[in-house]
């Protein structure tokens, strides 16, 4: 593949980068917090899309890898004094390893059984961590202020976490694009359409699925590491929050599953909507209700999501939008 002849990829990365620069240019901490959350959701949704949109396996409990990455990195930074960058990468690798070990048996399940199993994994992991003393048990862990001094103080440390999130977001989008355009990605989509046929055509389903699952576990773990570093505290509840997983699914469905652009659009629209609802006095308690309603409407009426719908509308858009 000629990299320079991929205008869609470059345009998408550029748009994300420009938006991500807004807080940096303005130096506004409030905007930074907003965008950190949008990018976090973008990473989560794009990752879920690789296993759900490309491969056809709905991972309900995908947030488990966000929590694992967060906990591993937090532990390494606090206990071993490791630098954020290395701790984050190790958090990602641990998540990949766990995803491979879990994926090998669980990805044999099909349809609803797989979805249920992923919820079980997340709940099991949360309970395990809540009773695992080295990770602080149910109280979790928190940083002393000195941790941040290695990064030039708390203020700089928070910006560092943000830069990290921007890099992870760009990386996940590029990965999602290359997977989709590769032979491997074609294999995944064949499995999504009909696994038995895919196998007869020469595709090794187990290897493809486990690889896709491992990739989709890597990026949320990086995001988790950066997010909890920024928070300075990590607890089992917020780290393995099932409804954040489900919000990720809503974003994928809203934007368009199986497309590169869909999860990005979905994450942006959903996060903006969510923060509007949360800060609005009338709706603040209803944001999950509205998320559920949104999901219902999409599944009933626009199954393909925004980007999928646009792709169906015109052959030109189908060629341009990935």
């Amino acid at each position, binding site marked *: 593949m000629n990299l320079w002849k991929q205008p869609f990829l470059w345009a998408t990365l550029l748009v994300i980068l420009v938006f991500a620069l807004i807080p940096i240019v303005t130096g506004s901490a409030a905007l930074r917090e907003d965008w950190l959350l949008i990018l976090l959701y973008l990473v989560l949704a794009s990752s879920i899309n690789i296993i759900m949109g490309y491969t056809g396996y709905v991972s309900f409990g995908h947030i488990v890898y966000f929590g694992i990455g967060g906990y591993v990195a937090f532990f390494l930074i606090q206990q071993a004094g490791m630098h954020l960058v290395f701790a984050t990468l190790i958090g990602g690798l641990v998540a990949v390893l766990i995803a491979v070990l879990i994926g090998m048996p669980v990805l044999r399940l099909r349809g609803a059984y797989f979805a249920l199993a992923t919820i079980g994994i997340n709940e099991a992991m949360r309970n395990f961590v809540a009773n695992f003393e080295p990770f602080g048990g149910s109280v979790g862990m928190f940083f002393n202020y000195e941790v941040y001094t290695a990064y030039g103080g708390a203020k700089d440390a928070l910006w560092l976490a943000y830069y990290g999130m921007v890099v992870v977001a760009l990386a996940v989008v590029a990965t999602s694009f290359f997977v989709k355009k590769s*032979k491997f990605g074609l*294999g995944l*989509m*064949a499995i999504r*359409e009909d696994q038995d*046929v895919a196998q007869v*055509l*020469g*595709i090794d389903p187990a290897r493809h699925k486990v690889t896709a699952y491992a990739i989709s576990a890597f990026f949320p773990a990086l995001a988790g590491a950066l997010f909890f570093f920024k928070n300075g505290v990590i607890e089992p509840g917020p780290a393995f929050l099932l409804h954040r997983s489900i919000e990720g699914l809503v974003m994928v469905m809203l934007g368009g599953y199986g497309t590169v652009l869909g999860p990005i659009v979905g994450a942006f629209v959903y996060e903006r909507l969510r923060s509007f609802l949360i800060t609005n006095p009338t709706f603040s308690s209803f944001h999950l209700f509205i998320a559920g309603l949104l999901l219902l409407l999409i599944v009933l009426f626009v199954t393909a999501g925004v980007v999928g719908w646009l792709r169906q509308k015109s052959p030109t858009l189908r060629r341009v939008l990935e």
Partner: protein
Amino acid sequence: MTTDTSVILDIQDVSKRFGGLLALDRVSFGIEKGEILGLIGPNGAGKTTLFNAINGVYPPTEGHVIFQGQDVTGLPSFKLARMGMARTHQVVRPLSELSVRENVTVGACFGRENLSLDQAGRVADEVLAFVGLAERREMLAGKLNVAQKKRLELARALAARPTLLLLDEVLAGLNPHEVAGMLDVIRQIREQGVTIIMIEHLMHAVMNVSDRVVVLNYGAKIAEGTPTAVSNNQQVIEAYLGDPKVARQFLEEAE
């Protein structure tokens, strides 16, 4: 490539049991390179089950399958695909949300030649032109009509550049005109050196195009030979007499 044996596939005493049902009962036969072998038998005789057992969809309960001189009994189908065995399905199974071209590219990518995406795309275009689907290449496969889906099944299998092709009722559901077109395609495939086993219910077609015919009934092989010999075989006629209409048709066509 040459090997010392001219037998590409050897089926040795293959049985398949589903619970109390013996779907295949010690079936044995061989097929030589370049042959077209017709596999016939009444409904429920075990023809598709035999394909599944050969193709690794499920392992045979007993017996062996030797493909290109290698014992492949119980190997998963993706490994057989890479060794050069391709098949079509009786009930068409397009990868609906992928385009026609993508469907065929999958076959080329993961088949015997293990091509890169670019090379596979070129093979897909060639094969699509060959089966007459070139102008539908960008359509979603799910939107094709039945005859086109049958051709797509065939194209996907051919794109793998197989040495052995298992065709499961590619003619069913086609009108006479489409059947003639498909038979032409099948003959051309054989001319390219591909060995073919075809399950077929259309007697005139299978008798016309096959070099040899194997007849199954209740999971057991009851006859094997040239189309003429098989259609004069008493046991075969009796097997089909279960359905008088088919039997009459069969007898007429054998004349």
